[in-house]
């Protein structure tokens, strides 16, 4: 039953990704991208990952879409230029080849939900067995995030801080170098 929901949601996801690829209006693309993230959050719930679903719904659907809208608003350019002369067959070929290679690569991976898969029998089994006793947190995701892999989370905070500093430095620079071009309003 959950597999059926899974497949329906994933098909919607493929359609949404193709819609993002094809649509020319960037504002509409931002909305479609928000829908895409929401579908991903729904899939996480079906895959028994409510914590990841919360994060995706808040960060992916919310913040990402808002950032995209802010960018589109501040570049004042909501239409993609049609490029008739551009040849994208090499990109298509590369994508197809890589897709086929990946599908070949996962052919002997453990089937979806197989409880005997190596991924479930090693370190994760220990987390599930003694996670609550050792950390006192019933939510094992929180236990692993904050206790067993606390340094990972510290590293994540470092990355977010660096990204924030980078954005501030990029956007708050007072002198704005311009490249003079053929466009009449450039510079």
């Amino acid at each position, binding site marked *: 039953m959950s597999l059926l929901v899974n497949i329906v949601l994933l098909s919607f996801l493929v359609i949404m990704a193709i819609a993002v690829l094809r649509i020319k209006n960037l504002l509409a693309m931002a909305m479609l991208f928000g829908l895409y993230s929401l579908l991903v959050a729904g899939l996480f719930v079906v895959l*028994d990952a409510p914590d990841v679903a919360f994060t995706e719904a808040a960060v992916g659907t919310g913040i990402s879409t808002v950032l995209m809208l802010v960018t589109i608003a501040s570049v004042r350019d909501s239409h993609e230029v049609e490029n008739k002369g551009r040849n994208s067959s090499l990109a298509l070929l590369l994508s197809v080849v890589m897709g086929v290679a990946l599908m070949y690569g996962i052919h002997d991976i453990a089937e979806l939900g197989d409880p005997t898969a190596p*991924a479930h029998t090693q370190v994760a089994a220990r987390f599930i067995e003694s996670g609550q006793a050792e950390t006192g947190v019933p939510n094992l*995701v929180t236990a692993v*995030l904050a206790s067993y892999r606390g340094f990972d989370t510290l590293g994540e905070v470092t990355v977010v801080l660096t990204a924030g500093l980078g954005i501030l430095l990029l956007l708050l620079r007072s002198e704005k170098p*311009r490249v003079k*071009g053929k466009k009449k309003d450039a510079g």
Partner: protein
Amino acid sequence: MMDYIIGHINYWLIIAVMMVGMFTLMSRTNMIKKLAGLSIFQTAVILFYVSLGKVEDGTAPIVAEGFSTYSNPLPQVLMLTAIVVGVATTAVGFALVIRIKEAYNTIEEDEIRELDAKS
């Protein structure tokens, strides 16, 4: 054969989404759309990892009475980190797009290349 398809169709569809994202990234010249393609690629990878942690008849990894089978918490934790880091790096990308627009007055990659060739 049927079991093989049922066990793998999830992964195949995720790979299809991933490749649509990669094609968007490579074939479009608009930078905002490129970043959207990159984000799609990234969420597909995250989805792949989380689906590796799914256990049949399992429940969300929150310890409670009456449940003994839980999904694997480890991929979920790693992907929580990846989502936040991914949005942070995408935000840097958007800031760069805004600066490129200020400097070149366009966000189309081939127009920027033309301007660079002239100067």
